[in-house]
């Protein structure tokens, strides 16, 4: 009985320690092992308790290992996904078309889209730092994201008009064959929308590449000019690409 009381007390203290330390299992197990070893040497009388604690340690380690395995499995599952997959974002998308496309067509399409992506990226880069998006139509630069993106797309020859809201830009892109894709991997020239506190797809930008770093250019409301920033600075709603 005394033994069980003691064991319960140790486990409770262990739990308290875990809660105080941010639940870093491996480090906590390290500490517990060190303490157990020290006491084992000093007081043979508590060998029984220490053995019990030692017996408990492999179980914890197993749990940690299992967690790691689960993570690895998730990674593998993710890696098994196709690099770029057309998803069913809307009723107008035809997923089946990608599987029937022959290689020659695909290659031609790829080189065409690569050239187009480069044009788009170059076009949006040319707007960096611009003060041209501060008119009354965009609330002095506060609501200029759609105008910035559609201007860049128009200048790159992708769209034929400038739009003032994100949904309209996305709609125009879909009308010329752009579709939602899974990311990563990212590609230069992708159009990205973000979820803001007002809802999904309320902010829009274009992905650019520097080395192997993919960032986005979008209008900054606070600075009232387009700027480069991390793609992941807000939750991504969707990424559109000419497939």
């Amino acid at each position, binding site marked *: 009985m*005394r033994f069980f009381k*003691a064991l319960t*007390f*140790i486990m409770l*203290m262990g739990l308290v*320690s*875990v809660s*105080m*330390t*941010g639940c*870093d299992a*491996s*480090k*906590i197990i390290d*500490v*517990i092992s*060190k*303490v157990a070893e020290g*006491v084992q040497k000093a007081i043979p*009388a*508590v060998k029984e*308790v220490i053995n019990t604690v030692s017996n408990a340690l492999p179980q914890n380690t197993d749990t940690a290992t299992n967690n*790691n395995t689960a*993570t690895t499995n998730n*990674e593998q599952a*993710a*890696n098994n996904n*196709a*690099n770029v997959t057309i998803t069913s974002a809307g009723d107008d998308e035809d997923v089946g078309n990608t599987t029937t496309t022959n290689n020659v067509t695909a290659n031609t399409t790829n080189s065409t889209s690569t050239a187009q992506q480069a044009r788009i990226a170059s076009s949006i880069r040319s707007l*960096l*730092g611009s003060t041209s998006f501060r008119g009354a139509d965009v609330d002095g630069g*506060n*609501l*200029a*994201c759609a105008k910035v993106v559609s201007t860049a797309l128009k200048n790159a020859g992708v769209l034929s008009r400038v739009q003032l809201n994100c949904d309209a830009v996305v709609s125009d892109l879909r009308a010329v064959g752009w579709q939602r894709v899974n990311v*990563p*991997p*990212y590609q230069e020239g992708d159009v990205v929308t973000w979820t*803001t*506190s007002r809802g999904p797809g309320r*902010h829009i930008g274009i992905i650019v590449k*520097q*080395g*192997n*770093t993919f*960032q986005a250019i*979008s*209008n*900054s*409301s*606070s*600075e009232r000019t387009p*700027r*480069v*920033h991390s*793609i*992941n*600075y*807000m939750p*991504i709603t969707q990424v559109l690409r000419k497939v």
Partner: protein
Amino acid sequence: MRKATVTLMAIFMFAFAGPAFCNWEIPFGQEKTQVGITAPVHAEDMPVGPGSYRAHGSDIWVLDSVKGRVLCFGADNKISQEVAFPALGKDFILTDFALQLGENGEVKAVATIDMRAKEIVVAGLDGKEIRRIKAGNMMQLDEIDIDRNGQVYVGDYAAASIAVFSADGTALRNIPWQASGFAVDSSNNLHMLSYAEGSGHALVTIGADGKEVARHEIGMAEMQNPRIWAVKDSGECLVSMVPPSGDPSKQKLMLFSADGKAAGSADFSNPYYINRYIAASKDNVWLVKADYLKAPGEPVKFDSLSLAK
């Protein structure tokens, strides 16, 4: 006897486990001990909270972007240092900060960048201005680090370069950069990443004089968005990358030895609205765990990342 032993063990567990792993919780609010948060006001609807976090020893340092200051929280979660940046302009935008270390590794100054004013401000721990550098020719001021001699490095995503300023504020040079992070080591070397089609990524070390002193290929061409967060005295570098497929917010944090060998890794999901969210001290790596959209309801917390081999 057993009771005494068990008590002793419990005390040991507390003594070892408590101070060894810090458990910071940083609340939002108006009080001096709280960090500022601004609810989304612009069309982007991005909340503004602390933009950058750095760890040093058993302390976490926080850039309080709203209140224009840096706070240091000790292992006991109490504020041990506050540095208010002097004479910031109207509507300042503080995106990053850096700690200038002294000869013995102690923090002796802090530096920040004001994106709106295009200024770099270096202040002593007493809050007195040491240096103010005008960087009007830069397009954006996104990341900053400072070496032990006071030489300042500022990354510009738009210009894809790092601007280097001497301790007296003189513009020295621009280093081409792929917007993939950088860090300064205790020997005043700059560490950055370089990517080339075919060979993949490389760790590049540049001396304080601007000359390249080392380059180690690490490959991993399939990984995107590399960012170097910190470099240890041993030369080990902490680098995050986005795997070729999966959830866009999922990243892999990797430790590379000084010669570019992978020495450990951990998976993590990045928080939003924060520029610098990985904080590394000599022995620990912390991931900022915060959702600024839920502020001030939920404080900033930190997850310890173990880099498994």
